[in-house]
């Protein structure tokens, strides 16, 4: 068996396993064995993409609005599951979204400067918020003060929703860290930096959703 013959039947080799003749060719041919190893690697790594991305919080907002409009969601006899928005907020609760938005604006400014002047990119580690430049896994890192304030505000309004928002914040913070690491690995990669900004915007959207749910 030569390389041409082997590569003709390669899709079947993946599906049905290899014959003795094919195995012998692989053993003697680094090109075909390298090809097979690469394709196998791609197939295995593709599973990582299964839950890579997170939709914007606005998706749920739109779904909820539509379900309420259609009457699919309705209040239970025991009272509303999602409590109505509180009439007043304490100072800490208002500071939280402001801090988040300031963080977004700050990050955008830093990265826009980075695009204009690639030489300034190595300074990002020093100037970016510590919470984002810290590459520790999300599960081992406690939420920062702003997050804690937001969660306290959510809990006071609707205790059942606190865990949900804690999870959302944990996810979005992990997303920011992943995006930051990629952007720092290749500061000239504009797409990676765009992903960082998207991640910050998602975090701001979580705050916005928590504090101003636009329910009908």
């Amino acid at each position, binding site marked *: 068996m030569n390389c041409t013959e082997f590569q003709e039947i390669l899709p079947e080799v993946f599906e049905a396993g290899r014959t003795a003749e094919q195995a012998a060719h692989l053993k003697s041919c680094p090109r075909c064995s390298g090809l097979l190893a690469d394709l196998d690697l791609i197939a295995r790594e593709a599973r990582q993409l299964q839950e890579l*991305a997170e939709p914007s919080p606005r998706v749920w907002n739109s779904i909820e609005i539509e379900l309420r409009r259609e009457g699919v969601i309705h209040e239970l006899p025991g009272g509303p599951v999602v409590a109505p928005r509180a009439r007043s907020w304490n100072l800490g609760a208002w500071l939280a979204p402001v801090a988040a938005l300031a963080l977004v604006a700050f990050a955008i400014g830093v990265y826009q400067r980075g695009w204009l002047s690639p030489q300034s990119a190595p300074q990002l580690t020093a100037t970016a918020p510590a919470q984002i430049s810290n590459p520790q896994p999300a599960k081992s890192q406690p939420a920062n003060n702003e997050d804690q304030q937001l969660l306290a505000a959510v809990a006071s309004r609707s205790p059942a929703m606190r865990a949900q928002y804690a999870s959302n914040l944990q996810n979005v913070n992990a997303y920011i860290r992943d995006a930051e690491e990629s952007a720092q690995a290749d500061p*000239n990669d504009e797409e990676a930096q765009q992903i960082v900004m998207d991640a910050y915007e998602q975090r701001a959207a979580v705050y916005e959703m928590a504090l101003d749910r636009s329910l009908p």
Partner: protein
Amino acid sequence: MTDAKKLQGDKLSEADAIERAKQGDAEAFQLLYSLHKRRVYSLCLRMTANTAEAEDLTQEAFLQLFRKIATFRGESAFSTWLHRMAVNVVLMQLRKKSLPVVPLDETLESEEEAPKKELGAPDPVLAGSIDRLRLQRAVDALPPGYRRIFVLHDVEGYEHNEIAAMVGCSIGNSKSQLHKARMKLRESLKTSRAEKATKPW
């Protein structure tokens, strides 16, 4: 640990959430959404390579699911039911976009789109590692026909016979498209690795 199992460790299991959602409980709907949103959105994003479109399709898939949740009897796993619904929503959307419908078996590839044969000079291999973001970008850059089969098989884990039924092609065509998709991804990943190696950073 999956999100569903984590939830079971908390106060409300997925089964409870489904039952409460059937009664119209908003919190239950949100919990079900939270458990499955990443998988559904990722599927939509991989299939369309467009975030705005993926969000619209995610919204549509969940809306369809929640409208029909009263009919869910639990014969199959909820995630399987939801996922199949999401795939159908995406495939329907893709069919609408690509009208007039051309059977996949008849799709011709241009020279540009077809993966190169791996013959001739020795070729560098990927050496056992792939950067996740680069893989994501390479998948996004696949021609739509290849991307559809690759996502359904390698990312989502559907078998060729299931894909053939969902997409409307032969099993052989599904296998062939998958192989070409993987070959094309290998080319893209090697190219992006070579470009990265030439950069000063």
